[in-house]
Every structure is written in C-alpha cells, then in structure tokens.
C-alpha cells in the first residue's frame, strides 16, 4: 500500500487498536507482563528481538497442543504407509519377485519410518503457522515507527482495545505503572472501500486475469485434438540430429534407419557360418547329433554340469525335474501367478533332438527366457550333454546296470 493515503484513512476513521508500551530490557518486559497478566487481560502480547526466558510463565501462556497434533500426524503417516504398501504390493497388483513374500513387514518398515517423519514434520510446521495465525501479511503495529526496533534492541507490550477489560484511561494507567520508556496508541489499520487504492484493485484484476490464461490454455489443450507434436519444454539432449534404431529414414529407398550389412560381407567375429554348431540345424531340421566342435569327453560333461548348476538349477532343480529353489519358494507362498518350470526328463523332452534343445536354451521357450547372451555356444552344447545324461538317469532300465550289480538293484 502506498504511503500517501494512510493519513487519509487515519483522519476518517481514528479507531483505537491498542496501547503499546516500550521497554529497554527483558526484565522490565517480564515485570510488565506479570502485572498485565495479574490485571486479568486476555488480548495482549509481548514482542522481543529474541525469545525471552520465563516470558511464557510471566504471560501465563499455556502449553501448546502442537505435540498432540504432531503425534496424531505421525500415527496417520505410519498407518498410511502400511495401508499404501499393503494395497499396492499385496492387494491391487500382487507381483511375485524372486520368491519374496508379497506382504512382509520388514520390507515396508523404511517407508513406514519415512512417512511417519514426513507427516509429523509437515504437520508440525503447518500447525505451528496456523496456531500462531501466520502468515499475517499486515498488522496495525507495522505502522508504528518505533516498533521497528523490536527486531533490534527494544521490548514491547501491547494490550488490545478489543479486550473486555480494556478501558482507555485505566489501561494506560496500568501501563504507566510498569515504567515503560514510551507509550503509544496504536490505530486500527482497517481496509475500507474509501481507503483501498483503486490502482491496486485494477492491478489485482489484471493479474488475476493474467493468471487464468495458462490455466485456460491447459484446459483448451486437454479438450481439443492436434496433429502437432507436443511442446517439448526441456530439451535436454532428447532431440539430436541422428537416427535411432528402428526409426524411419527417408534417405533410403526402403525407409529404414537400420542398415543391413552390405551383401557379401559379415561383421568381424559374426560369421557363425556353421548352422549345426551355432543354431542346432542340420539337413533342413533340428540336428540329431552333437556338432564336431564339441568334444564328447568327461571334461565337457563336467563343464556342462557346472554350467547347468549355475544357469538351470534355480528353476529346473538339480535333477531337472522343474523343482528348483525359485519354484519351491513361489509354491510355498501359494500366491498364484506362478507356472512350474518344465520337467526336462519327461518323455517329450527326451525325444527332442539335441538341436531343438540347443534352440530352446538359445532363444527360450514359453516362460523361459533366452540364454544366448549369457551362455556361449560351446557351453550350451556342454549343458545339453549333461541334460542328456540327466534324462538317461531318469529313464534307465535294468539293462543299463552292469551285470555284476543287477542283483543289488532287484
């Protein structure tokens, strides 16, 4: 508000807001506060450059309810965290991850802790502001010149005229008895139709209308269709003069950004010519024999067992029966959404050519992911060798047992 029309307001409506007393020391303020409190006033306050020890007692300020509000907010935060995590993880979108229970308290404690603190902290701040009646953009004391020194070295006490015990003369006598350095009447600073500056009114109208423009644009954009690309406010390095994989490129006749290798060329190390070794194909079908590169030795078998232990047992189990740890845990939780891994010793898998098994490991099948990226071809063949041994062990006949041992098996 501009200065020039304050005198006008004061001259038209000289209404008393309260009586202000100024003191030099905190002790004087404490004494004054005790006297004013003793006189039974209710609408009064003290002002000081720093928190004065003992002022709460002197003014008879009661303990704040803020701690209780904070406690309730903290408990609300705790409850919200429990409910939110239960609803998201165990109820609305149950999704089993590596055999962990869908609903388990330990995993949720960090969020419970965080939300308890968050709710408590925000509520304490907002509650403190609200209980203190803040923010308080204007106050009659703002117009009192001497009051500026409350931020420096002076101590003030004001009794409001709206107090039921207030009487202009008696109250002033009471204040005089506390030996203030200065006493001043504080005038009300009411905003009325006459003293409200017209420029401010028009300014506010303009600003309000201006503030509505972005909102209106957003509403319009949400309710109309456009074939233009979205406005990209923050570019980062999103748009770059280059072609990404799987994009269009008008330069080439086929319109593809990805270019195939030139006819008759192969990238270094990617020849992979041998269909049998690299893809398990031979004579137009799945290969029925191991490729020549694979050494059918004990060593390869040991390698196959080791790799099988690393990559296959978690789901398929040690014997390949489809009962690995991941399956067991998922089964034990009985929370649905789980399909048992295949038993690789059952007959139809036994009858599959080695080439088809190779393809299964390389490219995956049904729920099983592809392992070509993790297991090199020679190890895949070694694993197949071991799988064949497992299958054989589960489908053995008496003829497999050496003559000398047959007696003990029967």
């Amino acid at each position, binding site marked *: 508000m501009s200065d020039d029309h304050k005198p006008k307001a004061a001259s038209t409506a000289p209404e008393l807001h309260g009586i202000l007393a100024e003191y030099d020391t*905190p002790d004087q303020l404490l004494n004054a506060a005790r006297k004013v409190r003793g006189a039974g006033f209710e609408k009064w306050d003290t002002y000081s450059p720093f928190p004065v020890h003992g002022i709460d007692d002197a003014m008879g*300020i009661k303990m704040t309810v803020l701690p209780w509000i904070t406690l309730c907010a903290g408990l609300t935060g705790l409850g919200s965290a429990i409910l939110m995590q239960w609803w998201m993880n165990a109820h609305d979108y149950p999704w089993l991850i590596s055999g962990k229970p869908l609903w388990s308290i*330990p995993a949720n404690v960090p969020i419970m802790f965080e939300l308890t603190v968050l709710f408590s902290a925000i509520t304490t701040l907002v509650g403190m502001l609200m209980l203190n009646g803040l923010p308080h953009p204007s106050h009659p004391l703002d117009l009192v010149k001497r009051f500026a020194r409350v931020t420096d070295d002076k101590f003030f006490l004001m009794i409001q005229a709206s107090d039921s015990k207030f009487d202009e003369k008696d109250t002033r006598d009471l204040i005089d008895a506390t030996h203030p350095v200065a006493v001043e009447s504080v005038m009300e600073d009411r905003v009325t139709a006459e003293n409200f500056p017209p420029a401010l009114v028009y300014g506010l109208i303009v600003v309000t209308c201006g503030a509505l423009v972005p909102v209106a644009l957003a509403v319009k954009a949400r309710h109309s269709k456009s074939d233009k690309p979205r406005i990209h406010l923050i570019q980062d390095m999103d748009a770059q003069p280059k072609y990404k994989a799987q994009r269009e490129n008008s330069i080439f006749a086929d319109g593809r950004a990805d270019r195939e290798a030139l006819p008759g060329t192969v990238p270094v190390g990617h020849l992979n010519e041998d269909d049998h070794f690299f893809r398990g194909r031979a004579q137009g079908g799945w290969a029925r024999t191991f490729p020549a590169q694979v050494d059918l030795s004990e060593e390869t078998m040991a390698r196959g067992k080791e790799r099988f232990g690393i990559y296959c047992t978690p789901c398929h189990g040690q014997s390949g029966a489809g009962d690995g740890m991941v399956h067991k845990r998922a089964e034990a939780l009985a929370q649905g959404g789980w399909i048992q891994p295949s038993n690789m010793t059952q007959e139809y898998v036994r009858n599959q050519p080695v080439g088809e098994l190779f393809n299964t490991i390389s490219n995956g099948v049904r729920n099983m992911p592809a392992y070509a990226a993790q297991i090199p071809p020679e190890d895949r063949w070694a694993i197949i060798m071991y799988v064949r041994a497992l299958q054989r062990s589960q489908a053995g006949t008496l003829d497999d047992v050496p003559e000398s041992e047959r007696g003990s098996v029967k």
Partner: protein
Amino acid sequence: MATEKGKQDAGKSPKKSTEKASGGAGGGGKSDGNSGGSGPHYPGDNIRLGAVGQSLFTKAAGIGAVALVLAAVLGSMENDGFRRFSLSYVTAFTWLLALGLGALFWVTLQNLVNAHWSIVLRRIGEVLAASAPLLAILALPVVVPIFMGNSSIYAWSNTHQVEASHLLHHKAPYLNPTFFLIRFVVYFGVWTLLSRYFLKNSLAQDASKDGSGLMAKMRTAAGPGMIAWGLTMTFAAFDLLMSLDSTWFSTMFGVYFLASCVLSINSFLPLAAMWLQKRGVLTKSVTTEHYHDLGKMMFAFTVFWAYIAFSQFMLLWYANIPEETAWFKARFVGGWGGGWGLISAILLFGHFVIPFFGLLSRHIKRRRPTLAFWAIWQLVMIYIDMYWLVMPNADPAGPPFSLIDLACLVGVLGVFIAGAAMRAKNLNLMPTNDPRLPKSLAFENL
C-alpha cells in the same frame, strides 16, 4: 495471544542473543539469587560425598565380591569347564562395559561440542568413565582363557578348533590370541588414558585460577579422543561379542553396541544424580532442566538403537544369504511365543515400542520418579539385549535362565559402583571452576 511468536523469532539478532544468554543467568532462572559473576560459581550446595561414599564403597564392594564368588561356585558346579559361567560373565561384563564406555563417550562428547548445560553433571560422568582400568581387571575372566588358548566360549582361541575349521583358519590372522592380546592392551590403554586425561584436567581446573585454559585444552583433546574411542569401541564389540559366533559378521555391529553405550550412560546418569540428591549432594545444582535433557537423550538413543538394530536386520533379511541370516534365524527359534523368538519380541517392544511412547511426553522426562522408571527399564533392556547377543551360544532352544546370570550381573555392577564410590568420595562432584558453570546452573529448556 501468542500470535506474534513468529515475529519475535524472525527478529532475533545474534549479537543480542549472546548478551541475553549471559544476562539470563541472573534474571531468567527460577532459583534466583545465585551470584553470577565473582566468588564461588555455584550456589551454597553440598558437592562432596564424604562418609556416604565410604559406606557405599563398603556395601557395594562386599555385595559385589560375594556375588562374584557365588557365580564362580555355581559355575564350577555346572561341570562344563566354566562354559556357562563364562557366557553369563560375558553378558554381564559387556553390559557394564557399555556403561563405562558410554560414560567416556559422554564426557568426550560434552567437551567436544562445548556443551554448557551438562557442566553440573560432568564430574559424575568423568568419575564413571575413569573406571576403565577397573573394567580391564573385570575383563580378566574373559580374557585370560583366550590367552591360554583354552577359552570355552571363543572357538577361535582354541588351536584344535581352528585347525578343524576352514573358516576359523581363514580368520586366524585377525582372530588369534596374540593379536587379541595386543588389541586388548590398546583398547583399555586408550580408554584409561582418555578417561584419566579428562578427570585429571577437570580436577586441575577446580584448583586453577581461571578455568578457561584447561577447558580449551580438554576440548582440543576431545576430537582425536572421540575418533580413538569410536575405533576401539567398534573393534572391542567385534572381539568380545561378535566373535562368540565366529561364522557370523556384520559391519554394523560396532554402531549397534554404540547405541547401547550411549543409552546406558544417559539412563545411568539421572539415576546417579537422583541417588546423590537424596543424600543431600548437588541438590540445588542439578535441576529438572538437566533431568529433562538427559531424558531427551534417552529418548533419542532409544530410537537410535531401534534404527540401527532394524537396519542391521533388514540388510541381512533382504540379501537373504545363509551365512548372514543363520545368526538371526538362531534368535527367532520358537516364533513369537517362546524360546529366543520371545526374547527378540521383548526387545522389539520392550526396548523400542513401549519406551518410545513412554518417553515421548515432556512431563514424564521432567518428573523424577517417571524418568527413573524408564532409566531402570532401559538399563534392564540393555542387559536383555546383551543376553540375546550372547546366550544363544549356551542353549539354541531358548533362554537358559540361571542364578549365575544374576550373580555375575550383581557382582560386576557391585565392583563397578564400589570403584566409582571410592574415586568419588573425596572429590568435588561438580567442576567448580569451569567458566560455563553459571550457564549450566541457570540452564532452562525453552
């Protein structure tokens, strides 16, 4: 009425607040009339224990000695090569060690941060911290068998067991009797030197003309002292407690023990101060405000203990690696209702949830009987925590309660209190010449 509080704070200027703080010593306090500037810095208060200290020494030493002998006799009747006794003794000793180390931490911390409020309590802390050499002697029943290579509870000290176990063999470069002897000397050496340093300089301050020089000297030592304390405390916790089960490891274990140390001293100090005040010592100097602050520290470290205990648990739980989870699995035997699982549940609720709400209110912290109740409660809980750490080694099925446990606890505590009483009886129980004393006496929580 309080609408302008925000403005008061906003207008606070640093220059004025210091001026106020020094003025507040005479003006703001309830117990006005103490001389702020010249003459003795404390009000006419009794700060000597005198004959009461002598009688406490006699009683505590007597009870302690009888209890320790009783524990040893009961232990020998078990006919298990003192294994049960050793485990009971380690439980009681580490509980006491947490208190003694907590006192040293507390004294170092007050010096380090230049605390004003705690000056009236500092001497009590210094006296308790100075028990370090006594603790070294009390450690002998645990330590001597290790040196002799026939400890019944530390498998790593036994040559045959180390030979038989690949893991122990692997850990032998750290966990071996010789290196342990070196560490043991370093630990108690550091604690003795540090606690003696503070007590000696603090007493010299009483006699000096101007205490500010020694005050600055102690503050300078507190920084490196705190680092030394942190390292020695951590490795002592590894050696004495974690290595009982030498297959398990947790890098967080040191901080876990720290939580118990700090909670111990902040629970013990109010009890010690109340005991002294009942006998007419420090009656005017230690006020509700100081108890309130100790209560706040109790509350803070109750939460801190839970924070650390859960952090340690959750990391191991989430990773779910057998070699790490086995230790917790052994402590969940019996579920919620019995065995070690019940003790775990008692720790969860008794060491955290219940005291959390119990200590939340400021009224509870400002009332002596309620504060004393929670202080004793938490000291008991710290003992149960130590029991929970140690005793699954005695009986994997459940807590094997025995009179030996109680005898060991009473024994070491008796000796500790006797030592403190002997040290305290001829000393000023308040640093009379510390420049910060007037502020501490007039201290008020806002």
